[in-house]
């Protein structure tokens, strides 16, 4: 798939999370990764609220420390189109507890800060073994994603039936639905119609 996205999970009810992030619900369904909606939200039965963004850098811009006042904050960013960059981190009580990052770069295959939770070593070792067996695939790309799933139960490309709803920043204008129209050759060539 062509992902270049990020999401944040907060161990708190959805209403409070959206309020803290200054988002409002739209009532429209959304599919993460489709770029149909810039932001979307879903609640996981375990008590986590997931806010998904089509912006790879978004999770790095939010004030996770402030957000952690509501509960544990798990951040995740991932792309599989350029550098195969993935990252996951946990913030608790205003402080980053751990961070695990990966890029398809010999110097940045697995970068760890802090003390990741127990599944980390098992996951890392298994993926390293797979990587050694087949270097044509970036198995280590999954490490932060699998670790995040181990913590909050969410991985965006798992077919778990989770339904997302589009949300928007409170101050952002509501985008009017545009009537579908056929464009010329160049417009269709560049995906504008």
């Amino acid at each position, binding site marked *: 798939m062509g992902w270049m996205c990020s999401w944040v999970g907060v161990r708190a009810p959805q209403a409070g999370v959206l309020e803290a992030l200054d988002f409002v619900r739209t009532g429209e369904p959304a599919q993460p*990764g489709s770029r149909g909606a810039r932001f979307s939200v879903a609640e996981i039965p375990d008590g986590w609220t997931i806010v998904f963004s089509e912006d790879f850098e978004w999770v790095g811009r939010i004030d996770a420390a402030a957000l952690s006042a509501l509960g544990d904050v798990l951040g995740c960013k991932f792309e599989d189109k350029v550098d195969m960059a993935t990252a996951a981190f946990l913030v608790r009580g205003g402080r980053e507890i751990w961070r695990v990052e990966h890029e398809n770069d010999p110097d940045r295959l697995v970068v760890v800060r802090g003390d990741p939770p127990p599944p980390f070593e098992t996951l890392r070792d298994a993926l390293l073994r797979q990587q050694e067996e087949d270097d044509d695939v970036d198995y280590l790309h999954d490490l932060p994603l699998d670790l995040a799933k181990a913590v909050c139960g969410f991985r965006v490309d798992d077919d778990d039936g989770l339904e997302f709803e589009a949300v928007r920043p409170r101050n952002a204008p509501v985008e009017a639905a545009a009537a579908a129209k056929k464009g010329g050759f160049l417009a269709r060539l560049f995906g504008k119609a």
Partner: protein
Amino acid sequence: MTDRRKTKSAGVIGDIDTWMRARQAEVRRLGRDAEAAAHEAWGRAARTGQSIAASTSSEVKQLGAKLMQAPKAANSGQVKRPAVAPEKPAHDRSARAQILAGARGAQDAFTFGAGDYIYAGARALGDAANGENIADAIEDRIETERARDAFDRKYYGSARTTGQVVGTGAQIALLGPAEGLIAGGARIPQATRLIAREVSALGGAGATLGLAGQAASDRAEGRFSSAGDYLGAAAGGAVGALVGRRGEGRLAGAAEGATTSLVQDLANGRAPSLDRARTAAGDGAVLGAMGGVAGRVLADGMTMSAKEAAGETVSRLRTAARGDRTLAGPKTRQKLKTGYTVPDQRSVRPNGEPGDIIESKFGRSSKLSHRQTQAFEQLPNYRVDQTLPRDIGAAAGLMASTHSDRRNPPRP
């Protein structure tokens, strides 16, 4: 000043100096013809085993002046012309002479002619150490080298041309590591290869680039090139684009330059000039390498979102080249045996049937993830498009080569 002259009386030395200065002035006026005449006589004498009183560059030039002013007198004076059959060649045709001419040609081509100047300068320093005026010595030596080149062209043409081709080839080969200073990246094994339609489209794009370059050159120089010139430019651009698939701007530029030159000659009713083609290949390789490096640097310096957009644009172009249409609208999920994938694009065949499921990648570090590998294995129409910095470099190199100002086809 030579030892022989030093042994003479002061008066005689003064006369000789005056005479030499006058002769050298005459030779400079007479220019290269004198040099050629001198070398011709020198070669003739060498073949016949006759001695010739001209052991230094200056003395050869003096001989040349005398030959041009009074050839009968010169022949009866310093050079004893033996009775030789008219059909016998007037130069050394030995393998050694041919090899040396080839080596000089290779050196000329490899150094863009600078080697002659360097050699002349070094010899002039020696002349100056022997008492000659340094400026005059440099000019004399340069003219000697030019005369030698003219001699080689006349009598060792094939050897010289062969050497020049070798020299240009070495030039092009040496540009490879230079262009490779910026890593171009390696294609992942899962990347989808170009089909025949895409290759044709690539050639067409190159031809268009060649035509645009020729038109730009005409506009800049205020002239109209012939239809044959444009045909050559199109052919060169097409060949350059196809060679550029290797991801090396220098090769794309070299191929474009040589092809343009040769086809322009043919299309304009001229005998194809290997020398012009070789020169054009060398120039194209240098420009292509420069463009290649610039393109790779540009690709590396792009933001991640710009790289994403570039990769997806290339995918759209590939889809169009294949004769398909890119589906508009948001991305949609593609279910797999485990989980799902969200491809970057989907295409539609001309008959409306579903086309490819496309994953666009950009950059040296891009690979398939585990989930993408599952898609690759499970979906028969899963297409992986990977654009590398070397692709951008080759395109930039071809653009530089086709838009250079070297497009000056000879006028009949």
